């Protein structure tokens, strides 16, 4: 899977170590988004024909197409269901968290 991960926390320091002015290195994640989810999408890789429609329309980019099969980054999937709606062959199911 080729998706950004939680970054190493910034090293502890003192007030002198703050950036000069409100700025930061781009691309630094201190939190995941999985807590926003009630349902999680599950891709049936047997059914999936790799049309990549779900990859295209995911607002969060949580579907990775780099491998042989599509993979969902569950750290950053919010369970919005846009992918499930977009799949024309029903290869994605929304499963309630805590059930599957």
């Amino acid at each position, binding site marked *: 899977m080729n998706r950004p991960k939680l970054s190493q926390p910034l090293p502890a320091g003192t007030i002198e170590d*703050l950036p*000069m002015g*409100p*700025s*930061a*290195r781009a691309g630094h994640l201190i939190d995941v988004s999985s807590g926003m989810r009630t349902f999680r999408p599950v891709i049936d890789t047997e059914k999936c024909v790799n049309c990549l429609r779900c990859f295209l329309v995911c607002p969060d980019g949580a579907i990775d197409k780099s491998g042989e099969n599509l993979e969902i980054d569950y750290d950053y999937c919010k369970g919005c269901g846009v992918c499930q709606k977009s799949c024309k062959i029903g290869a994605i199911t929304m499963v309630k968290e805590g059930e599957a």
Partner: protein
Amino acid sequence: MEKLFVSGDEAVALAVRQAKPHVIAAYPITPQTIVVERLADYVEDGSLNSEYLYVESEHSAMSAVIGSAAMGARSFTATSSQGLLYMVEGLHYASGSRFPIVMMNANRSLAAPWNIYGDQRDSLSQLESGWIQLYVENVQEAFDTTIQAYKIAENADVMLPVMVNLDGFVLTHTYEPLIMTDQETVDKYIPFARYSNAMNLDDPVNTCITAGPTYNTEFRWQQQLATLKAAEVVDSADKEFGELFGRSYGGMVEAYRCDDAEVILVTIGSVTGTARVVCDAYREAGKKVGLLKLRCARPFPTEKIAAIVKNAKAVGVLERDISFGFEGAVFSDLNSALKQQNVNVPTYNYVGGLGGRSISKENIAEIFDALLSGKAEKPLEFINLRRDINYGA
């Protein structure tokens, strides 16, 4: 060195040309227009290689130089009164983001009522904006200080925007002799290096971002420290300028004949020149008066001022502004400084020159007389107020 006869505005444009900013954002407003006009001439004739942006408002002028400074480029803009107020959001933005922008401000009265002539309510109402604010006395100082402004702004411990203030019309449009500086020495004085907090195509940066309750205070503390530190740099930049070019202005403040002065008048801006003449005349007549020129209003030279005035019997502050319902901004700052330093000298506020009204030698003589007499009006006097209005008089 080349000697010219130019106006205050023209001097600023000449200085900016020597400072070689990468980006200039230009929007016209009386009495600053000559600055942006001359800069356009220099770009046209090839003597200045800057990106010259015709922006559609002052808010956009400040926003554009925020953008260019965020890329790490040396930037310049100029404005006055209504324009300064239109960009107030940007003033706080630039200082909070630590962008070393230099801006010339032509001090002009604020509407309403409308008035295009000089007073200092525009910049003195923005002392809270986080900008370093310098006030100059004459054309030569306008030129020299504009170059010094980059030295101060881009200092690694400061990295704050600097406003160079010229009194509208009385200084922006008055012609005086100017001795130029040579480009090579200016380049050595203010060499350019891309700013350390800039965005970077090879190592991306997110800037001007949000800092919530958890971190906001700490960013502000840093900003406060940097602004306080700027006091030393205003002094050292002026001193170094003096060593290289033979002219300096006392840094944050200039104490003129204050050593044994019984009364001291604090002035800010071009009226200092008039006050010097009166001060000399009074000294000639054996009266012990002194003049304290406030060159830098932010950061405020608390300790210096207290040390200069502590033995005086009375201190007057002459300024071209008022905070309605209270007093002049410089007066408030001075009183607070003296209280902090435990200096207990009676102080008096003289508000004059509003909306371009002249401040004459006679007006200043009256102030010195009042201070010397011990019968000065408290707490505040509008000098030269016309109590009888005679149309046609």
